[in-house]
């Protein structure tokens, strides 16, 4: 037991495949750790109320809202952010599909949309349109570009099935 409790916590985790270690205030949210400490600003802060999903990252294989996770809760975890999706200069099929189907307008919600879909499409490789719409319930697009986002998601599913590229877990 740590005496009176810790106000500063030492955390270590893997972020986009790279081990990182840092001392962080207990009250620091994961999204601020990623953006302000690691400089990974692809993960956005949108609503600050756990609604909009712009801050979505993958933690141990599952999509989570990083504004609703303390950094110390991710100690020992594998984190994947939008910066870690492309490999060897090649975009992930979900990224390609968004590009090709005009799935982004202003682009602010896009990283969160893509990370949520990464979790969802790994679990459900052959989704219906309705299932896609339900999967992104926790991601708001204020350009209201949902039609092209859903189209991108369905195209991404097809691409992922074709290349058989199932990136499971946090890497």
């Amino acid at each position, binding site marked *: 037991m740590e005496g009176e409790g810790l106000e500063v916590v030492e955390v270590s985790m893997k972020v986009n495949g790279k081990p990182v270690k840092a001392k962080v*205030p207990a009250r620091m*949210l994961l999204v601020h750790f990623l953006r302000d400490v690691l400089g990974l600003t692809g993960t956005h802060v949108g609503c600050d109320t756990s609604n909009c*999903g712009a801050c979505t990252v993958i933690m141990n294989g599952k999509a989570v809202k990083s504004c*609703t996770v303390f950094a*110390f809760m991710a100690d020992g975890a594998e984190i994947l952010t939008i910066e870690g999706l492309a490999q060897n200069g090649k975009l992930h099929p979900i990224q390609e599909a968004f590009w090709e189907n005009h799935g982004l307008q202003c682009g602010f919600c896009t990283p969160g949309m893509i990370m949520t879909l990464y979790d969802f499409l790994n679990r459900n490789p052959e989704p219906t349109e309705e299932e896609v719409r339900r999967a992104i319930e*926790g991601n708001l697009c204020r350009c209201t570009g949902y039609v092209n986002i859903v189209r991108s998601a369905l195209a991404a599913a097809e691409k992922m099935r074709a290349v058989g590229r199932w990136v499971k877990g946090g890497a």
Partner: protein
Amino acid sequence: MYPASFKVFVPKSLDEALELLAKYGEEAKVLAGGHSLIPLMRLRLVKPKYVIYIGKIPGLSYIREEGGVIRIGAMTTHNEIEESQLLKEKNPLLSETASHIGDLQVRNMGTIGGSLAHADPAADYPAALTALEADVVLKSAKGERVLKVSDFIQGPYLTDLRPDELLVEVRVPVLSGAFGTSYKKLYFRAGDFAIVGVAALVELSPEGSFKRVRVALTGVGEKPVRARGVEEELEGKEASEEAIAKAAERAKEGLNPPSDIRASSEYRREMSVVLTRRALIEALRRARERLKSQ
């Protein structure tokens, strides 16, 4: 950094957590998946001096059948409950209810223990757990208490949990016979809490009459309520949608729901009837399918 400063403990065992609660319980908040507590801390509506994070304690996340009941560990996430094959077969009401909570990301992190301890009056689980007459298990360094969920939840954000206690398990029955269940939730914005939520359980006799009916509502009062009038009206009667439509009118008996920005009290009362009818009709359809296949 929006939450106020606090000191965190990360116990590695249940005993260690209970010891910490015995010592710091009055000034501490237990953190599980964080999806009720962190939003409140971010708004500084809650400013605990200590946070006890139970996510590193092994053995608090499980769904297993033992002696006619299904035991669910407090750290089990809504997503795990939604996808559990065991629950889908033997208590589909709970997995269906879990699938209606928040959104994908929320269900990936939020836990059944955290949700119950938070006791939001519009949360989804309390309806199902009240209809199922489920138990919660509370542990402290001094021992263990087992309470009915309907006794555990005392009001909005108010439970019988003592400062030195940890909610460790939820127990729901294994359903058998010709049963059918349904959870109907009314909401207008994706991911929202229920304006009204109704959980229904129907069990048919071999001849097709209502052997057992359980209905519970969330979002319509200070705590979840059983629609006992509806249950009494149907039990023993020949099963039909007409009988359900008539009995469902009694769902609003004694209800005095709150009015808020999303719905008026009157609207919630009327919707209690509508959703009770819909939930019971779906539960009946599912019970009939099961009766046919048995």
